[in-house]
């Protein structure tokens, strides 16, 4: 049967707009579901991997490398948030608390039972996953906005529990751990080795995110994000998948939390409270939750911005606020969307068929 419309006509209409608004549309269109050529993806991945691996040898100094480590373990947590928000459409503003569950689980296992990094890691990740799922239970009954409030409350509650946990949680002072148990020939007291440990975990997070994104599982999550009722009507168990993705997100958060713990060697409740949680939400929106490199870009921007611009903490909060507003107004898909759209525009690729129609339905 004949198709009575044509998208070619729509693209033609776009040329009638002013150049500026067309440029803007190119930047803002949400392109996440339009794949880039495999060669472009492969080259990007290789260049990024080489850059990240070479980083400690570029002589950028101790401070730079420290910020890089912070950026990378934060990004690992963000990949979980990117999965639940970007793919499944479930935003959380209490994600730092979920990282805190992992960090504190590992620290308590170390203090109480003497378990080291490697042995406590699976327990910490599992606990974060379970807690993530339990906080998620209300999402099955209430809408996304309510879940956001629940995550915020969880975050506040978590800090209160930690501060009042006596010697078990170290109260307001927190807990200390030793360094990562050395592997044969690798001593993680050396900063660059710690960096490579975190980088290896980041590569795992990236690979997992990539594989989920192209798999049936990823498509199932996106279906839930886009239209829950339709997802049910094609046979998707929406409730199960919502809990499932929150648990997977918890795994990432647990991993990130343990890496944070063993990098800092000391943790306290304020690391996992409301502000760090909001920063995580900011970073994932800034970078673009739906894009493979979005969370990493968001983490790099937020962690390096004060350094590059020489901002004090108050100024940097203002800068973050402005960034967030700009992103919401100009780049609803995040910086990741902008980069991809610019690339598509430059190569004349078929990137923007959306005509702005794709950016609705977020969270």
């Amino acid at each position, binding site marked *: *049967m004949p198709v009575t*419309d*044509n*998208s070619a006509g729509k693209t033609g209409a776009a040329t009638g707009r002013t150049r500026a608004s067309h440029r803007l549309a190119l930047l803002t269109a949400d392109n996440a579901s339009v794949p880039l050529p495999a060669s472009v993806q492969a080259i990007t991945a290789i260049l990024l991997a080489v850059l990240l691996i070479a980083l400690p040898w570029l002589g950028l100094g101790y401070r730079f490398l420290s910020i890089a480590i912070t950026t990378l373990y934060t990004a690992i947590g963000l990949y979980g948030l990117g999965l639940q928000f970007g793919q499944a459409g479930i935003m959380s503003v209490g994600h730092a608390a979920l990282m805190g569950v992992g960090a504190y689980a590992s620290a308590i296992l170390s203090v109480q039972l003497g378990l080291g990094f490697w042995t406590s890691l699976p327990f910490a990740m599992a606990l974060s996953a379970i807690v993530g799922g339990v906080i998620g239970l209300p999402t099955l009954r209430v809408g996304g906005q309510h879940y956001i409030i629940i995550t915020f409350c969880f975050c506040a509650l978590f800090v209160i529990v930690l501060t009042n946990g006596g010697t078990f949680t170290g109260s307001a002072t927190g807990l200390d751990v030793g360094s990562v148990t050395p592997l044969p020939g690798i001593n993680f007291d050396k900063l660059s080795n710690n960096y490579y440990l975190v980088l290896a975990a980041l590569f795992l997070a990236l690979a997992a995110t990539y594989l989920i994104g192209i798999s049936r599982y990823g498509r199932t999550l996106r279906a839930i994000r886009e239209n829950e009722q339709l997802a049910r*009507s*094609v*046979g998707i168990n929406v409730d199960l998948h919502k809990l499932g993705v929150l648990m997977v997100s918890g795994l990432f958060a647990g991993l990130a939390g343990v890496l944070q713990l063993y990098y800092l060697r000391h943790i306290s409740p304020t690391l996992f409270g409301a502000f760090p949680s909001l920063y995580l939400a900011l970073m994932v929106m800034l970078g673009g939750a739906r894009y493979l490199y979005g969370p990493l870009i968001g983490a790099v921007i937020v962690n390096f911005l004060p350094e590059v611009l020489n901002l004090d903490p108050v100024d940097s909060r203002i800068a973050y606020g402005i960034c967030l507003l700009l992103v919401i107004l100009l780049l609803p898909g995040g910086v990741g969307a902008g980069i991809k759209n610019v690339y598509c525009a430059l190569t004349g690729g078929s990137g923007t*068929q*959306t005509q702005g129609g794709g950016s609705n339905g977020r969270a």
Partner: protein
Amino acid sequence: MAALEVRGLRKQFGGVVALNGIDLDIDTDRVVGIVGPNGSGKTTLFNVVTGVHPATGGTVLWQGQDITNIGAHRIARKRLVRTFQQAMSFPGLTVGENVRIAWEQGRRGGGRWASPGTILDFVGLAPLGRAIAGSLPFGSLRRLGLAVALGVSPELLLLDEPGAGLNDSEAQAFAAVIAQLPPQGIGVCLIDHDMDMMADLCDRLVVLDFGTKIAEGPPAEVLADPKVREVYLGPDKKAPAS
């Protein structure tokens, strides 16, 4: 024994009785039409049968199994699939991805389509595979709704006003696609207000009024029924063409 057996189905929304004890048998080798004035309970019938809303009373049997209130996704997996009166899609995803999502669900336990592409070809959306669903014109969106439902490899397809909002030529083309389904082993149960089309397309018509089945049978017979004419000949309703 019919594939779908609805027995004494009741649905109440607060004080509104949307379904007042419906009995219905639907087989998968033909097209059954459901008609009735606005608010007579047609959509609610689909919603309760497919688990979108829980039943207040009565049972739904599908292939001999009780599927009352077992949940929408389980019913879809049993290959009893529906479309929505409000045209629906996964708006931010490409047309191809929309269909692939349904196809991947339907493929469990053996689907009828070799690939999502065969479904796009069947409904005539193949050229739009890379378009974003949310930017489709309405006619194509309706087709996509059908393609997504077909992707689940239904044995019985419940279509809620698939022609609503389409122009005449689009509606005719759509009717032609629907007519191809029963010979391929996909039963169709169809809600629509276009009586000419329904008379053409359906082997059997069911008429609902205020949540009750008031007539059932071959279209010509049903449309000649005085009770049906009375329902449709209300002060400002057009008489159904018969």
